[in-house]
């Protein structure tokens, strides 16, 4: 407790506090030792202080600091400029890459590349094969339709055949056009589904 008290007085450090600390140390050996140590440190610190008599010293220091600061700011400006230029260049490069990629994607959506064309043609062949098989099976039912529904299927198939023929004629002149290929695949798929529907219709059709 006593140490705490003298520590507080020493930290205050003003004249009254130091006087009170002295009075307190007179009745406390431990506190007296603390006060003695404090006074010793203070004396050593005072002995370390130095003064300069020249009035020109501080302006010289300030000038030197300004020059140093100016010298340091010049390279910073160029660094910023270089960074901006680099960023713009990089941005332009990235934009160019993205633009080219985007245009390539747009091109691919419009005109099929060789690999995509091969895949499309394989899919068309598979559809055609399935359609040929289904047509053989459905032919007897469609030759002379026994119901309005069969008549309707026949009509739909004729419509699909016309549209497929139109699409194929145009594909012959525009082979890799992606829209034509997609359209042809969609119509093959529709025809295949219609033929499956024809075969699925059983004797119920006869009642209609």
């Amino acid at each position: 407790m006593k140490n705490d008290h003298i520590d507080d007085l020493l930290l205050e450090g003003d004249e009254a506090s130091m006087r009170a600390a002295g009075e307190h140390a007179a009745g406390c050996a431990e506190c007296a030792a603390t006060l003695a140590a404090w006074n010793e440190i203070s004396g050593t610190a005072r002995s370390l202080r130095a003064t300069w008599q020249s009035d020109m010293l501080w302006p010289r220091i300030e000038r030197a600091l300004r020059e140093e600061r100016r010298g340091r700011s010049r390279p910073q400006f160029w660094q910023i400029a270089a960074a901006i230029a680099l960023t713009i260049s990089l941005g332009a490069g990235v934009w160019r890459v993205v633009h080219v990629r985007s245009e390539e994607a747009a091109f691919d959506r419009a005109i099929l590349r060789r690999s995509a064309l091969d895949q499309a043609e394989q899919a068309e062949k598979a559809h055609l094969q399935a359609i040929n098989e289904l047509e053989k099976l459905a032919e007897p039912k469609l030759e002379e339709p026994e119901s309005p529904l069969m008549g309707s299927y026949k009509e739909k198939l004729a419509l699909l055949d016309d549209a497929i023929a139109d699409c194929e004629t145009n594909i012959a002149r525009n082979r890799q056009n992606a829209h034509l290929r997609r359209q042809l695949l969609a119509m093959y798929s529709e025809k295949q589904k219609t033929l499956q529907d024809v075969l699925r219709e059983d004797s119920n059709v006869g009642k209609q």
Partner: protein
Amino acid sequence: MSGSSRRLAVAVAIAALATAAHAADAFVTTVKKNFTFRGGTIALDNRFGDVVVTAQSGSDVDIRATIRSSDASFGQRIKVTATEASSGIAVTTDVPDVHFNTGSLSYSIDYEVRIPASAPLSIRNRFGNTEVSGLRAAGTIVNAQGSVTLRDVGARQMVENSFGSVTVTNALNEVVVRNQNGSVRVEHAATVDVSDRFGSVVVRNIARSASVANSNGSVEMEDVGGPVTITNSFAGVKATNIRGTLQIDNRNGTVDVREVTNSTSIKSSFARVSVSSVKGHLSVTSQNGGVVASDIRGAVTITTSFAGVDVRDINGPAAITNENGKVTAMDVQGNLNVDTRFGAVRAENIRGSASVVNANGSVALTGVQGAALVRTSFAAVFLKSVGGAIEVQNQNGSITVSDPPASACHDISLKTTFASIRVALPPSPSYRVSARTSFGRISTDVPIATSSASDESLSGTIGSGTCKLELVNANGNITID
């Protein structure tokens, strides 16, 4: 070289390589043309590629065509021509004629066009998608094999297509769509006229009238503020929340109708018809298809065959004609008339009278406030709690009548052959009884003041004899409880 500089160099190199690689096998060029719209129509003709038209304020017409080809020399020969005349601005696409192409020569021309919102528009496209938005003037779009999309359009819009979908959203005026083998969807329009084949049609939120003629594709109609006409075949029709008259003609496809504020007329065949919540009259003419109707505020007329009819909660009279099908009628506020063959008839809670003509089918009527007239054969007749006069003519089928009103009696006439007649009278009955049969017995638990009686005939009076009770049988018993 710093790290950043090295990264920049790499990026530039990648871009250059990508461009080079792209340029090696693809020709892409953009053609731009600008005009000031001075009147007439803006007409655009394309064959292979997409067309996107966006309306803008002012009178500028900005045309941007992107030509893509697998062959640079061929691509360079594709010309986009735009001319201005008194009739308007015409944009055409000229592709060199290619008759024999066994290689990989391919091309497409996509258009992005900005036009004044007030400029009438005409587009012809064949193999590509077409999209128009913001147009306030009339528009005509003729496409063949590709989708057509219209958004936020003002004046009358006409769309023709063959093999592709048609979608119209937010049209302030009339929309006319002619399609084949492609779906059609119209949402939020003033009036709609759609014809299609082999494709589904969806029409929603129409302010005034809507008309759809389809075949082999489903039709769905919802929230229409005026009259609706739908023709279809071989696919289902759904109509919901129609605030005008509704006419449906569908063959070989189901019909499902809900919430109509006006009269509804349906023709159908070979499929089920289901109707609920109609505030006007309902008329259904069907063949070989069942009919279910409920919550109908007006009169109901239903004709069908070879399938059942079920009507419930009918506010007006109901007339049902069926062949070879059963009929069920519940909670009918008006008179009920049923004419059927080979099917059971069951009716409950009929506020008016009930008239049932059947053959080879049973008849069960419960809770009829008015009179009941029944003709049938080869099946039983059950009448319970009939408030008015009762007349039943049956052949080869029993007749059971129970709980006639105790308060006031009405005439009862029951005739059959080769089956029994049973009548359960209310407490304190008052009838003039005339009963006769052959090859049967007449028995009764009710005290009758007989005027003549034998094994096969009985005449007399029950109570004060206010009403007629005529029971005629042949080869069957007669019982009076």
